[in-house]
């Protein structure tokens, strides 16, 4: 269980940088009142962030990943049980990869 000084410094630097991201956006908006257009954007931001995050991930995984993503989405929409949706996504990816050879 060693703790080296250079590693500790790197970890702390990572933590500070990440906290700046977490708090920075809100800290700026607490001071500056956003115009109506930005306020309207904020309502759309949550969904858009996740879609923009997932699309490249699925594209990198090819068609089995798209199928697995769709499976997770459909199971969640139908049953609203997250564990089931995650298992469906992983199982579908496994099966589709087997089918693809």
């Amino acid at each position, binding site marked *: 269980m*060693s*703790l*080296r000084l*250079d*590693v*500790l*410094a*790197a*970890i702390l*630097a*990572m*933590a500070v*940088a*990440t*906290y*700046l*991201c*977490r*708090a*920075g*956006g*809100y800290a*700026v*908006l*607490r001071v500056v009142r956003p115009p109506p*257009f930005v306020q*309207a*954007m*904020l*309502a759309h*931001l*949550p*969904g*858009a*962030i*996740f*879609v*923009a*995050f*997932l*699309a*490249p991930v699925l*594209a990198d*995984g090819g068609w089995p*990943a798209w199928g697995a*993503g769709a499976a*997770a989405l459909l*199971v*969640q929409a139908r049953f*609203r*049980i*997250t*564990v089931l*949706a*995650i298992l*469906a*996504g*992983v*199982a579908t*990816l496994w099966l589709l990869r087997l089918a693809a050879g």
Partner: protein
Amino acid sequence: MEQPQDRDRRSGSFTAAGMRRGARAALGLTLGLIPFGLVIGMTADARGLSLLETLLMSALVFAGSSQVVALGLWQEPAPILAAALTCLVINLRLAPMGVALGPVLDRLHGFRLWGSLALLVDNAFAMMVTEMRAGRRDAGFMVGAALAMWVNWVLASGLGHVFASTIRLPPGHPVFFAASAALMSVLVPIWRGRSDLLPWILAGLLALLAHGGLGLGAPWPVLIGALGGAAAGAARDLRAAR
């Protein structure tokens, strides 16, 4: 626009009951993050980090994809500047999330405000957005959910480090899709109906264009897609309101 519950704005802004409810609601999602945490632990072991260093990183940084990338460029001695820049760039996507939580966070002060922001992560954010849209603004809900994910995250990365030599999963193993599947499931409660179609499709297309077409690395596909999609939605909403 103002809701009836705004009459007593301070009450229920951060409750223990909300924290318990959030932690319970997060249990399903934490399961999806276990494989991701194991990967972090295994990667850290391969890069020569001790168990204590691995636990510290997961506990203090608590942001998976930036940890993977930073560990990918790890060296002796530790790359302090490169690791910090990696976190800054990849976690930039968290900044607009904090902004979107305004209605919840505006009711908090001091440690509760800046401490809640310290625990901001994708899945807990998505859960809190669903809460907000249901008219509930208890920040404790997000903190409870995020704390459950944090405990799970630190434990899973520790386990990954301890069992690094025993669990030998190849990088593309289907188990690692669990983290993406968890985010897919998060889309369902966030969906508000047909008006989301335009911003969502545009966000996806712009991200694909930035990623595949222009070959840009993180965080640019996310930022370009999210801001472009949300801007299109906002432009349409304002035109309709006029």
